[in-house]
């Protein structure tokens, strides 16, 4: 790679999100982050779920796998194990990740699989036309909650910390430079990284606009006293200040699954040249089963 990469090297098809959709910023930030890390497109796999957010694989140029709803993380885990040389990035919506797919998230976190997960959290089911999502504010009127949502929202940052995450960040679509830093940091992190992005859906969510967030958000990255390596501060920040924080919330040394699996091949399994292994089978047969 003689010439430096720019975000344009990661340009896929023309993005078909609604005008003003927060996901444009996420796409741009992901492109910038990959350029900054000088990751060529063929060394990246972007795995996305189903939803408006999930279309990101069409708009980003790299190896892409647009999977079924809620299952980005198992698929990404399989890829990350198959080829340790790839940068594996999973991306999807709040419904995808915190609704149908939440169990995989908790377990991917405790495995500390070395991959990066970007959630485009718009607080609605955009692609199915505006129903409540797990992060919808209670009381919000949506097509599936015409009298107002009755459930308390999930708190992704709290859950991720409780699950033992080693890289946790929150960004907002109005601040692309910060997003770039947070995503790039996640990709560099050896272990599981979650970047929750507050990404407005102007079509179906009139409440949480860019302005709304701007009025509420506290940027941890700019707080001199905040130290993202402190679990206590992180627990305190997500408990008391909740969703209204952006920045790097927590980072600890990763203990990636890939490195903890016993005798796991350090070079990519995918580049092994397979030959029939009758001999090994025979050895095991003789040792275990011979009569």
């Amino acid at each position, binding site marked *: 790679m003689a010439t430096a990469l720019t975000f344009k090297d990661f340009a*896929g*098809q023309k993005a*078909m999100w609604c005008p003003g959709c927060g996901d444009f910023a996420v796409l741009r930030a992901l492109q910038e982050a990959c350029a900054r890390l000088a990751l*060529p*497109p*063929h*060394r990246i796999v972007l*795995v996305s779920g189903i939803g408006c957010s999930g*279309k990101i*694989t*069409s708009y980003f*140029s790299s*190896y*892409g*796998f*647009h*999977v*079924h709803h809620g*299952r980005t*993380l*198992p*698929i*990404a*885990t*399989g*890829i*990350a*194990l*198959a*080829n340790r040389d*790839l940068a594996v990035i999973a991306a999807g919506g709040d419904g995808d990740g915190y609704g149908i797919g939440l*169990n*995989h998230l*908790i*377990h991917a976190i405790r495995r500390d699989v070395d991959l990066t997960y970007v959630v485009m959290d718009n607080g609605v089911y955009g692609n199915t036309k505006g129903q409540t999502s797990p992060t919808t504010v209670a009381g919000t009127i949506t097509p599936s909650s015409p009298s107002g949502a009755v459930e308390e929202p999930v708190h992704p940052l709290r859950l991720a910390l409780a699950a033992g995450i080693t890289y946790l960040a929150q960004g907002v679509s109005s601040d692309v430079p910060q997003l770039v830093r947070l995503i790039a940091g996640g990709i560099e992190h050896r272990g599981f990284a979650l970047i929750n992005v507050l990404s407005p859906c102007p079509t179906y969510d009139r409440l949480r606009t860019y302005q709304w967030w701007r009025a509420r958000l506290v940027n941890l990255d700019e707080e001199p006293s905040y130290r993202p390596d402190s679990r206590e501060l992180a627990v305190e920040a997500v408990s008391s200040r909740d969703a209204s924080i952006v920045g790097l919330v927590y980072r600890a040394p990763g203990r990636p699954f890939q490195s903890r*699996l*016993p*005798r*796991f*091949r350090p070079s*990519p*399994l*995918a580049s*092994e040249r*397979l*030959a*029939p*292994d*009758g*001999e*090994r*089978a*025979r050895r*095991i*047969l*003789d040792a*275990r*089963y*011979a*009569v």
Partner: protein
Amino acid sequence: MGRDRAWLIGGRTGEGVDSAGDVFARAAARCGLEVHTFRLFPPIIKGGPTSYEVRMAERPLYARSDALDCVIALDDETVARHAPALRPGGLLVVDDPRVTARPGTAPDVAVWPAPLTALAREAGDGIMRNIVALGVSARLLGLDRAVLQETVRERFAGKGAQVCARNVAAVDAGWRHAEAHPDRWPPLGTAGGARGADARGAPCRMRYLLSGNDAIALGALAAGCRLYASYPITPASDVLEWMAEHLPEVGGAAFQTEDEIAALGIVLGAGYAGVRAMTATSGPGLSLMTETLGLAGMAEIPAVIVAAQRPGPSAGMPTKHEQSDLLHIVFASHGEFPRIVLAPGTLEECFLDTALAFNLAERYQCPVIVAADQDLVLKKRTVTGLPVEEVRIDRGERLSDDEAAALGRAYRRYALTPSGISPRAVPGQPGAVFLSSGDAHDDRGVIDVEDPAVRRAMVDKRLRKTRAVWADVSGTRVEGDGDLLVVSLGSPCGPVREALARLARDGVRARFLQVRCLWPFPTHEIGPEVARARRVAVVEHNATGQLATLVLAQVGGHGKIAGVRKYDGLPFTPGEVEGRLREIIGGDGRIDRLAAEVRRCSSHDSGAS
């Protein structure tokens, strides 16, 4: 057919019935005998009724026995359950001298109380009564004492010298006690067979005693499987445990996931990225995988799934046997996509089919399901050799790095080729980056293409892929000849073969068709057979005739197909199959019954009058 004996030990889970059975089977095998085992165990960890049958003969065995020669009853319930299966002249050994045989037991079955617990206590610990029982059994059945002791020694080697010696002494105590009993059977096998030569004098280095699960795991390893992800479930957990032990030896990994959805998802991720991966499960897990299966179909991802059936629906009978997931395996998941379903019926086929599955998955870029069943994967059998040298690796059409780089953005991952198969690139290859998706897409992988012609072309392309599968797969295995065609698949093939051999001895000729590939359905192979036959009996372990349904749909045969079905949790015995086949071919008096069966077969659930 030579001598053929069946021994069973029964008691409660947690009492060492399983390990006694295992040791006995192994000792018998070492005496040069061919062995076939069958366990009946409950989903209760301790205290549930359990038994272990070892059938032994001097010819290969593929089925459990119709009747037993010797039953060791560690408890009362074993007597109630298994004494009725004793052959006339059989022997019931009981620990408790107050026990007598039950109604239903053959009149000349002898009940012989042997103080197993007392002898075990004398040898050092009452819990060794299972081992004492082995000593008794070896003496009675004429197995070699030294071979048994050696096998016991090996078994307990890990537990320290003292435990080991004590158990060997327990064998001896049993043996000596049984000397008091008249020798009921002539000696079986030879000690020299152990590690020397088998009963027929062939060198024994190649004789193994293993289960279908062992064979499946070995097949996967031999074929280059590197990642294995699954969720524990009976009877597939063995494969997880085997792989967790052996995959690290080749730099791979096997691990347990949060559920079966994740397990298959991981397999798909690995397959997409160019690594051979597998999962194994049973009905409940397979049902959970239904949606993910369709992603493999749409995105054309290789994936190998072992589906070991057990009685359903829902949790059903987790430790029992059935083949009632066939139509689910063939038709589950919304939408239409190619899948390949292999149906091994023997240990050797478990090994070969699993290995082959990886080639097929990569060549046809689709999910491949190895449809096994509880009986097939759990029972242990002796085999003389396993065809490990027959394993080949064919990774299908792949782009080289140079080709990928040269094509670059011009690469069409889902190119519309005549075969439907499009050469694959995998992530990491420079140049040919592409999108795979569970959404409908065009030949480049672009989604949200709404052109009806593109949709049609892509559906056709995918469905076309497995047309050529018969170049790589035999759809059936056909044996014998006669007006009656017997069709079966999976573990019942063992009892069917034995039943047909018995019928042949009576001069009754029949043709046996074992379905080896359930999907694509081998219509071209089965069609002519059904057409030629006067009557067709479809033998399967379910209530609604699922294999028969496929034959009827794909081939026809309404009016001449009769179902031979069993769905009580237990595998067929050869005698059961023989009896049902005799009914079917049993002359005009039986035609009505046949017709009724046929009607049932063709509209099983509809209750049509």
